[in-house]
């Protein structure tokens, strides 16, 4: 079980940063956005978002701020920092490399 979480971790971070590049959002909104963009292919546990968000904040990649939300109460909104933006670019390229590498190993099987 632990292995799966760790495998997810990096991916989830990337997804969160990706979502946040379009603007500040609260935890619930981030979860919704990921779900919509992945067309529900990735089931993000609502609960697992928050530890990830707090970790990213601690690393200085996102910053948070309390604002009024659509539910008529305060919610914590996260936004990308400059450092987070750099991190996102780096993660994106790393992800692309990974995808390419994995795809390449799959080619011979297809033939």
């Amino acid at each position: 079980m632990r292995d799966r979480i760790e495998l997810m971790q990096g991916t989830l971070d990337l997804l969160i940063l990706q979502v946040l590049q379009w603007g500040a959002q609260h935890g619930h909104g981030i979860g919704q956005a990921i779900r919509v963009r992945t067309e529900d292919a990735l089931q993000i546990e609502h609960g697992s978002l928050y530890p990830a968000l707090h970790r990213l904040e601690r690393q200085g990649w996102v910053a948070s701020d309390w604002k009024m939300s659509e539910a008529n109460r305060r919610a914590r909104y996260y936004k990308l920092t400059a450092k987070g933006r750099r991190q996102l670019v780096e993660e994106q390229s790393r992800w692309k490399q990974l995808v390419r590498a994995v795809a390449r190993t799959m080619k011979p099987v297809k033939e």
Partner: protein
Amino acid sequence: MWRRFFHRQTTDADLEEELEAHLAIETKRLMESGQLRAQAEREARRQLGSQALVMELTREAWGWSGLARAWQDIRYAARVLRREPAFTGAAVFSLALGIAATTAVFSIADTIFLRPLPYADAERLVWLGVSFPSIHGEFLPSPDYVAWRRDNHVFQQLAATQVSLSNIMILGAPDPAEVHAIRVSANFLSAFAVTPLLGRTFTAQEELPNGPKAVLLTYQFWRDRFQGRRDIVGSIIRLDSQPYTVVGVLPRSFVYPADAKIELLATLPVSPTASHRDRSMAAWAAYGRLKPGITLPRARADLETLYAASKADLPGFFRADNPLVLQPLRDHRVGNVHTLLFVLMGAAGCLLAIACANVANLLLARWSARTQELAVRAAIGAGRGRLARQLFTEIALLIASGTAAAMILVALALQGFVHFATRDLPRLSEVTTDFRVFGIALLMAFTTALLFGALPALRTGRIDLQSVLQQAGRTGASGGRRRARRILVAVEVALSVVLLSGAALLFETLWHMRNDHLGFQPEHVLAVSIPVRGKSIDDSTRAALASEVLTNLRRMPGTEAAALTQCTPLVAGVSLNTFSRSDRPLPEPFHHGDNISVCGAGPDYLKAAGTRLLEGRFFTEPDFAHPGTVAVINEAAARAYFPGESAIGRQILGSRAGPWKTVVGVVADTKNQGLNRPAAPEAFVNDTGPAGISDLLFLVRTLADEDFVARALGDELRANHPGLFTKTETLDHAIGQLSASPRFNTVLLSSFAAVAFLMAIVGVYGVLAFSVAQRRQEIGIRMALGATPGTVLALVMKEGAALVVSGAVAGVAGALLLTRYLATLLYGVKADDPRTYAAVVFGLALTAAAASFLPARRAAALDPAVALRHE
């Protein structure tokens, strides 16, 4: 740190608000998609999962939460422990006992083995001397000391002291008293780098045989006797009727380098021209301070050259079996206490191990009972690691409380140790309750914690959420855990068998020492001594005083016999001679073997001591017309020197010059070298003149009250001879003193063993009682299927018996291995005495059977209907 907790509070609240916001938004979203509020709220919560878990994991992401979490765990553990005062009390008490015992014993071992001696640059201090195995002694003859001090190249200072422990001097008027004095060379203090608190150290003149007489007072003596008056320096005190100048006061921290009672230091007479040729040899102890940079082998090489010169100076005195001894002073001070200390450390270690096993056992039992609680906590989101941490926090809290209690016990235990064990262990005067002791206690606590470390993992590793929660109520300890508890109890039993065996052996030793045939009848016998010193007493006044006291004693009602003597039945004679007989060649000079103690004794000595006459006669009044002409030997001497022949009529103990003494009788042996050693050869002679010092010693057998006799005699003496006083001791009391240190060992080991035994029995009872409680249902089914109460009783008893038998077998094996090391402490009983082991095992088995019977009876009395309905 408080800010952190404060900060943590707001952040917790923030996190909670953040999650509440999440729920609110999700609920709103779900309601917009057409769900009812209640349903939407439920669904939102379901999707979020356990809020506690989310908070927990998020807090972990904060990173610094370790401290806060530890605090939370501690508060939780404290709450859990407070809920069970009986368990907590028992556990803390066991741990406190174990930690205190080990800490006390290890502190003493630390002082003896590890602490540097209490002197500056103590590593440069050495002990040197020549070993004389035949008299079990190491000393440096005075002429060699003088020569070596003058001619060596390796010592900054070479100091000497008298070899014997302190001698007693009589402090003169106005208030005569005994004081304990030690004679040292003038450079003694500078060798040990000690500066006097007041005044000065000895000068070179003061150690010359006819030099000025000077003393240094110890701090305690100065404070108690002279009320700490600073003007005492320079004043004159009278010791043994001689004037001595007080030249200084030693600092409070001064510790004499041997275990002796000491109140003042005087000087040794060191003659610069001493030589073996003038036959003025005294035996001295020598302590050297090496020059900086001089190694031990280098010093040894230098001393061997000097020793060769000494051998040439007095041929025949030093032999091949008289090696030069040179060792660091600290090693010398350790002496031969290894055995006793290792026994005590082993015993204390066993006790701590048993205490740990017992507490572990209690914890396992309680955790079994808490399986559901733990499972629920795991279910609501406590990680496995977190649970283990929490259980360990409980242990840590127990150990911390146990250690705190142990600190108090240690202070008391160490005081007790120092008070009761002074004879056997060196350097006890240096034992103090300081940070080092607390450091050792912490070390012990840490070791204990390590022993426990695996326990929570063992426990939480086995929590299977599903099965525990489904079983709900039907809590059953898994087989593995029950086995763990059984093994723990068996180990407890084994360790307590080891301790009990050791204690039993020492107890038998003590019994033998107290009850073996002493060779005399100590009841109603007084040893009365009158210290008389100084030049004012010559032999005839001394004799007159002796006969006056004897007359007084004999006149007193109840006196059966009174004799002037030089020794008591508990001490061999005042001088140790080489045995000689007229019909054999004389022993060569400086012959070291064939020892015989010689003691002058008056006619009634035998009657006063209550010793049996075996052959011939004892002295009569007419013998004393010609002192030193007849002798009576003890059985040991007869056996050693007259094997297969009668000693009566033989001429012994003569020399080329001196007269021979005719043996007129043989008497029974008395315990003249201590209670745990056989009697040494001893000869009584008809000469009660002064032997070295002129003190008078009387042996009195009386029917009257001993205290009355002592008081009456003392009053009379003070009235007729102002300035004199008596010292009285009953032989019973003297015997008690002699068995004091074995008694201490026995009491100590017995109390360790008793505690261990109690813990083991409680362990056996605990495991069985718990097992019966767990197996109610099984027992109910068995009974429903036709088992009689008898078979159920047997079932439980058998479980107990298995524990005890396996433990006892391992224990006896361990004891046989370990008690061998006790051998040197034993007397009258062998380390593998089968009766002792049988008694220990039998006693343990009986008690364990009783402990098993209670739960077994409870099981047998179970009503199957009730037991099954309980489900």
